[in-house]
């Protein structure tokens, strides 16, 4: 996925953030680590007021048959899960004191 990802018309205001529409947890986590706090704060500030509407929009479809635009929107919400920790708790991209710790995702539910 890249910033060519398209969103439903009602969510055009989120277009600057479509580079967060990433397929796997690993990509979302690495995007978080590679982002500055300013970038994550901007993403968080744009997403949080729309999150309830995002979920309401996506809930209208069969989860297993989401239109591409809705799917991109939901992936943005997943990225918000990642970005929320630096913004709400850590004030830095990495978990504090997590130095060498890493996790390999062996299997994750597809979307």
């Amino acid at each position, binding site marked *: 996925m890249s910033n060519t990802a398209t969103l439903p018309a009602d969510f055009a205001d989120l277009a600057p953030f479509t580079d967060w529409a990433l397929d796997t947890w690993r990509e979302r986590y690495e995007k978080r680590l590679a982002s500055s706090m300013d970038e994550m704060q901007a993403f968080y500030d744009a997403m949080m007021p729309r999150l309830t509407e995002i979920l309401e929009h996506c809930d209208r479809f069969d989860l297993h048959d989401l239109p591409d635009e809705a799917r991109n929107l939901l992936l943005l919400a*997943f990225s918000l899960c990642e970005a929320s920790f630096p913004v709400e*708790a850590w004030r830095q991209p990495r978990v*504090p004191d997590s130095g060498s*710790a890493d996790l390999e995702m062996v299997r994750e539910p597809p979307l």
Partner: protein
Amino acid sequence: MAHFPKPLEGSWTEHYPGLGTAPVSYKDSYDPDYWQQEIDTIFKKEWLCVGRVERLGRGGSYFTREFPWAKRSIVVVKDRDGTVRAFYNVCRHRGNKLVWDDFPNEETSGVCRQFSCKYHGWRYDLDGSLAFIQQEEEFFNVDKDSLGLVPVACDVWEGFIFVNLDPEPQQTLAEALAPLSEGLAGYPFGEMTQTYEVRSEINSNWKLFIDAFVEFYHAPVLHQRQATAEESQKLASIGFEGLHYELFSPHSMVSSWGGMSPPKDPRMVKPIENLLRSGLFGPWDKPAAVNDNQNLPPLLNPSKHRAWGIDSFVLWPNFMILFWETGWYLTYTYWPLGPSKHLFESTLNFAPPENASQRAAQEFAFSTFKEYAFQDANTLEATQTMIESEVVDTFMLNDQEILCRHHHAAVREQVEANGRPESYPWMPTPASANGE
């Protein structure tokens, strides 16, 4: 001042007098000879969980597991009649690894009709019997019936697949898991098929991570910044007390309060948690599969406390299941890779989400779990290096750390019963881990 009642003896630890209350040595967590004894007397003798039956769909589905600590690799396969079997992953011809892709040391999975060796094309049926030898007539005195794959003892409990490397296991799986085999039976594991699985190589002894996950004494401190400021202050001043501890030696469990489904006060939780209705304890809205916890197996929530949040069970020797009040479960498995190194595996298992909101709530529960796991894992490396420095030779364990004390004692008991105890003068006098 105890907020929750303790046993009449005054403490959980003294309720099991064999455990003692003295400071303990942690040399059992870095001594190379002791580690080898653990492999020989425990890991090569006990039933070990290798995954769920849901990983094996139709007949012919298989996955491999690497056991470098035993220099072994196994194949777990579902036959066409539904039987789950395990075999050593070795071709009977010239010893080539039978099932692998790209990298011989990496685990793999798939579906097949027969296993076919990449080297000379020998083929085995799903029940392990040798089915085909390339140019059979070139061999001498071939008895195909005696050339099947070498079986590994394999059994299934509540959908969890276990193997035992002992050619003649001393107990059946059900016997080995008793009384948990019956006391946890009936939990809707099979309906929680939405699974995240992660793994990590960690620079600590395998027992140290079990220590970290069987006590919550650390939670208000190590994880304090994960909560809102107000909540974290409250948690730190109260500390942690378990609702209930119980030893089913060598197994054990701790029951804890907690949870917020939904929280009484929205200020207790972070803004995104309020929007997604989810957090460390999982999605706030329980799935139908748990029927509002009306039919919990008898060993869950033993104190029947209304503040119940989670039960953590250690299934001897290296497997844990955590049952959350909110209706999902976690597993942890710890595979020893060396005295100061282990492979940590974890699964998060939810009921399949019915819509995007439920899916997002689960994703957030995973994200949160991972933030905590990072903090826990890195702390272990800091502990491992310092106990190895031997600046301090005994360490303090409190009553809320009874399961740490018990697990090390249970390991010690088995090493002493079957190994060479005279080699370990630093170990305390044998004490029965079940407190008798």
